[in-house]
């Protein structure tokens, strides 16, 4: 049917000659943003772009995060695939590139790319070719409710080492406050604990060695130790009741509702904790603290090393050239400043971070700017198969069904199988 329509359109174009100017190009744009406020800004930018480019229509589609990940491989191979899709870069991006479902946009990025943070562009570069436009960066750390910490006599500013952190958890437990909320059903929120401990313990060197299969790979000392440290936390039973049944959004809402003192969060949860709170207000800014992931005694990682995301947009194979043109319009000084003013992202467009509206987000931007090693989320970096096993195994540690040693072995086994 679609082919027939296309035929009709091309016949009509031939017949009327001037059809090219009138032809409608629709750019299909698939995103996973659950917060309607930034999406409204996106839509405004899209309408502006349409006004400036007659005949182009930007069409937005939404898919829920987990559903999107599950659907992506089939979606990308269908004839009806969207032209612009969301991406976390990393290993998933690499397998998409290898499969040849993405468009190489290197030529179109010349000149423009210099406006963007170099490390963010690097994340979307595979074998020297650029496949996507970065959009925002984020940091993983603890969001904390100052009121609840205060009740247990804990000062957020004084938590710098992992021992301080465990101590805070114990105090909160003693005060009858749930120390941490986590979405165990989605698994990925749990893997942050393990991976961030690994980043602190081994730094960049350990990860790179593991990727080369050196030092025992993911079964090596660093990764077993991170499991053991994580187990120390798990043994304190720090999470809300039934945490293994909570989806990420529910857990974030739990924190937003003031039912847990802390949440190991992506900085972008600054908003989501409001969206998913019952009162839609969440923990107000003056009560919301950010705690950088604590350092570990003897750890080889720098305290300034960060774990987080580098998110952006990919162009799929066969997309109209207007798709890239739109992305270059979308990731630009003005829209990035507008999104920064609303604190929705830590922008990648140079200079836009000055527009960040809240002290909270300015602090995050500062942390990322100071970071010499920004590790992408492991579950994205290691690709769909190994990454998911990281999520599985770390959640099993939290559930008490795997020892740190077994977890490390499961991850290394998956890595060795290499698919």
């Amino acid at each position, binding site marked *: 049917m679609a082919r027939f329509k296309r035929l009709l359109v091309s016949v009509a174009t031939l017949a009327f000659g001037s059809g090219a100017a009138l032809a409608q190009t629709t750019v299909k744009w698939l995103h996973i943003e659950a917060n309607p406020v930034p999406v409204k800004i996106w839509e405004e930018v899209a309408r502006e772009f349409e006004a400036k480019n007659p005949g182009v229509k930007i069409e937005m589609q939404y898919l829920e995060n987990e559903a999107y990940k599950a659907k992506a491989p089939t979606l990308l191979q269908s004839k009806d695939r969207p032209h612009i899709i969301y991406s976390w870069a990393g290993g998933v991006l690499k397998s998409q590139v290898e*499969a040849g479902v993405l468009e190489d946009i290197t030529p179109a990025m010349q000149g423009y790319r210099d406006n963007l943070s170099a490390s963010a562009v690097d994340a979307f570069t595979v074998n020297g070719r650029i496949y996507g436009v970065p959009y925002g960066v984020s940091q993983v750390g603890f969001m904390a409710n100052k009121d609840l910490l205060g009740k247990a006599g804990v000062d957020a500013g004084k938590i710098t080492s992992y021992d301080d952190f465990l101590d805070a958890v114990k105090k909160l437990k003693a005060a009858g406050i749930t120390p941490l909320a986590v979405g165990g059903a989605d*698994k990925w929120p749990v893997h942050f604990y393990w991976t961030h401990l690994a980043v602190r313990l081994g730094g960049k060197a350990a990860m790179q060695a593991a990727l080369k299969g050196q030092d025992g790979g993911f079964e090596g000392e660093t990764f077993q130790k991170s499991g053991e440290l994580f187990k120390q936390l798990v043994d304190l039973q720090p999470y809300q009741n039934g945490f293994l049944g909570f989806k990420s959004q529910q857990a974030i809402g739990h924190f937003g509702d003031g039912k847990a003192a802390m949440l190991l969060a992506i900085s972008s949860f600054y908003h989501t904790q409001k969206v998913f709170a019952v009162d839609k207000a969440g923990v107000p800014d003056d009560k919301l603290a950010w705690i950088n992931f604590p350092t570990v005694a003897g750890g080889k990682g720098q305290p300034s090393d960060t774990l987080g995301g580098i998110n952006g947009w990919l162009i799929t194979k066969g997309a109209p050239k207007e798709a890239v043109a739109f992305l270059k319009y979308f990731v630009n000084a003005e829209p990035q400043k507008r999104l920064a003013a609303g604190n929705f992202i830590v922008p990648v467009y140079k200079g836009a971070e000055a527009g960040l509206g809240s002290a909270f987000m300015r602090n995050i931007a500062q942390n990322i700017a100071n970071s010499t090693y920004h590790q992408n989320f492991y579950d994205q970096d290691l690709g769909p198969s190994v990454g998911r096993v990281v999520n599985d195994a770390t959640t099993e540690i939290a559930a008490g069904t795997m020892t740190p040693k077994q977890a490390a072995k499961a991850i290394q086994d998956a890595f060795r199988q290499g698919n």
Partner: protein
Amino acid sequence: MAALAGRRGADIGKLSTILLFLPPALLLFTLFVVLPVGEAAWYSGFNWNGFGSPTNWIGLDNYRFVFDNRAFGTAFKNNLLIIIVSLLIQLPLALSLAIILADRFRGAVVLRMVFFLPYILAEIATGLIFSFVYDGDYGLLAAIYKSFGAEAPHLLASPQTAFAAILVVVVWKYFGFHMMLFIAALQSLDRSMLEAARIDGASRWQSLRYVVIPALSPTIRLSAFFAIVGSLQLFDLVMPLTRGGPSDSSHTMVSFLYTFGITRMRVGFGSAVGVILFLICVVFAFTYKRWIMRDE
């Protein structure tokens, strides 16, 4: 001579019927059953992420990975559990309700509809509804516990209870279907046999035990067949309720296939699970037909 011609005529008639009606059915069957299964068997020999065409042949390794996977063992065990629960709880429940509701009394039709209702509801909707019912903070169950002043358990969040909670939903959802089958069979029962039994002085229990249930036997066997095949295929209740978690404790073979094959982009691995599941179903169906439904 005339008889012979007539006989030949009938043969030709039969042959032309076969020639006319068999090819379309055979074609459809080949296209939609044989080819996909063959394709899955072919893919199961590759280490393949689903993009492009498979190139990395690894032989039977995928099958080894499946059997080495702890979660697959759990999934298989869970499938067996569903079958057991279906046969030992669901069918007897359906049968006893059918025996009560097959009689024409006031409200029988309404009750039948009420019990049948869960079956009409889409699986995915059922799953969502029950995920609210089971919610330990805001759910119906939590409200009941709270009214007794107790703290509600998070049934779906504990590896010990999650699958049991799913089993309850399975029974709730499908007993109505089997009940309807039994009611239909009961209503077509030859009444004179029951009367004869009554005249012979059989008690209600005796006539149930020696007349009704033996007469229902073909339906019961059919019902059990549906229950077992349906149990092996259970997927769409698991996903909204637990997605196989926590700790992969509530996977069925199909949700295992989806989670470990599709979402992880290990299509070869997933295909191997599909082939295993297919073989289990085929072996079961043929054995069942041969040994249990052979009279029909």
